[in-house]
């Protein structure tokens, strides 16, 4: 259960997508997310999905991995689909009974929303599967570095993110260990009403907080010992290169904005 969390999981590989500069990947992913919401008919939607499928194929990340990342959002998709079917009205009415009306526009919207959410998750998974957390936050830090002018501490934020991602597996392992230790003393985590279950979490959460705080202190100490003092004047071990590959892929993504707008207008909008 707890081990199914795939956020921040990297799937090692050596593909074109893996090698692409993280900044380019971030830009493309954001563009993709905007575009998938700009699609107003099936043709443009299909166009975007083909692009996504192509990117996945190039990345060589097994399709199975994407199903895994979709599992936790199934309830959200079902919920929004139902909501959209009943609440969106317009187009021809297909079914009407008392206060319930189902229209073509409702069904289309529901369908589009479901596809968009799924595409959203898949595209962000593709990003995290093909980019190590450090590369990702590094890329983010550099993309956002202009914000430094507004006195926003981009480096600090990026460092916080790197550390948080780094510690997710550690925390999961820790929870596992503590749970086992308390179960060995007869802790009952599986039965009882909500109140009892909440109370049963105390023996797990207290040791977890204690050890997290201890870890944070130790980490801060170790970083200070290595003369870490924030982003100012800090050089990098790995140089990032925004080369030809990056420029071309970003350019192509920008072109696809035009393509989507064109297809939307050419074939008529249905939502």
């Amino acid at each position: 259960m707890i081990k199914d969390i795939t956020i921040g999981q990297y799937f090692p590989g050596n593909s074109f997508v893996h090698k692409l500069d993280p900044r380019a990947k971030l830009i493309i992913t954001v563009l993709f997310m905007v575009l998938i919401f700009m699609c107003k008919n099936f043709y443009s939607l299909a166009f975007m999905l083909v692009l996504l499928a192509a990117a996945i194929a190039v990345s060589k990340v097994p399709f199975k991995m994407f199903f895994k990342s979709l599992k936790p959002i199934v309830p959200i998709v079902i919920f929004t689909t139902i909501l959209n079917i009943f609440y969106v009205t317009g187009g021809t009415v297909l079914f009407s009974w008392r206060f319930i009306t189902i229209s073509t526009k409702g069904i289309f919207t529901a369908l589009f929303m479901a596809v968009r959410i799924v595409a959203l998750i898949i595209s962000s998974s593709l990003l995290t599967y093909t980019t190590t957390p450090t590369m990702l936050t590094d890329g983010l830090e550099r993309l956002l570095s202009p914000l430094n002018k507004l006195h926003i501490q981009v480096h600090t934020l990026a460092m916080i993110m790197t550390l948080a991602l780094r510690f997710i597996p550690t925390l999961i392992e820790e929870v596992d260990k503590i749970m086992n230790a308390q179960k060995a003393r007869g802790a009952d985590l599986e039965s009882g009403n909500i109140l009892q279950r909440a109370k049963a979490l105390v023996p797990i959460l207290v040791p977890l907080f204690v050890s997290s705080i201890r870890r944070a202190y130790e980490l801060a100490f170790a970083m200070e010992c290595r003369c870490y003092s924030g982003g100012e004047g800090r050089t990098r071990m790995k140089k990032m290169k925004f080369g030809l590959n990056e420029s071309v892929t970003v350019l192509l993504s920008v072109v696809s904005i035009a393509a989507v707008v064109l297809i939307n207008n050419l074939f008529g909008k249905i939502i």
Partner: protein
Amino acid sequence: MNEIVLKTEKLAYVYSDGTPFRRVAIDDVSIEIEKGELVGIIGHTGSGKSTLIQHFNGLLKQTEGTVYVKGKDIWANKSDIRQVRFTVGLCFQYPEYQLFEETVAKDIAFGPVNMGLGKEEVDRRVRQAISFVGLDSSYLDKSPFDLSGGEKRRVAIAGVMAMEPEILVLDEPCAGLDPKGRDTILELIKQYREKTGSTVIIISHSMEDVAKLATKVLVMNKGRVVAYGNVDEVYSRHNELVEMGLNIPQITSLFVRLKEKGYNVRTNIYSVEEGRKELLSILKGGREND
């Protein structure tokens, strides 16, 4: 022969089965442990010791095989598994990280309260457990987070002892302690067994400690049991043990070397004191060969 309190049959466990990270942690483990025994489990890091003992109280469910506690398959009835955890008390490595209550007394009481015992019985067990680990009752009202590392460890062990398990299993109870803290813990465990007559299973890295304490030794290597028997039997296979990366006690290897050089000495020597006696008897009595 004594009653067999714990038995495993062809036990196997695979981590992350069906993924690229699949790993066979233990395989084909069949052992029998008699009542009142003190079994020392030794083996290289990653040899599957911790995985094995988590099967004894059903924290892990085996991929293959069966675990019997007092003759009963522990997984025969899934809802009885909590009961098994009270019969087989398991104390993890670094147990001090599981402390969570405001006071030592409340923390030690966690197990007994989960067993559904009455207030007076819980109180009796808490007091007994704290004395088992050699701390006086003034500790009971302290916060466990204010104690020293060694004291925390002892309180955590007391938390398992307070359940009065018939079988007490400890995973590296001395890990990370200084030599004095180590000796204290081992001595307390020994006394606990003598006082209560319970069966004790202890994982240890130190072959010296195991030799001193255990009545039986179980050696694991790459997930399999490679030797199981009394201390002399197992330690006489020193060459194999060294090959597996286990350090036999220094004093033992000294006598093994002496024997190889042709001196007529015993090799089942595990403490410096014993070694001294053996050497003296040779020097005086001249039991040298030829």
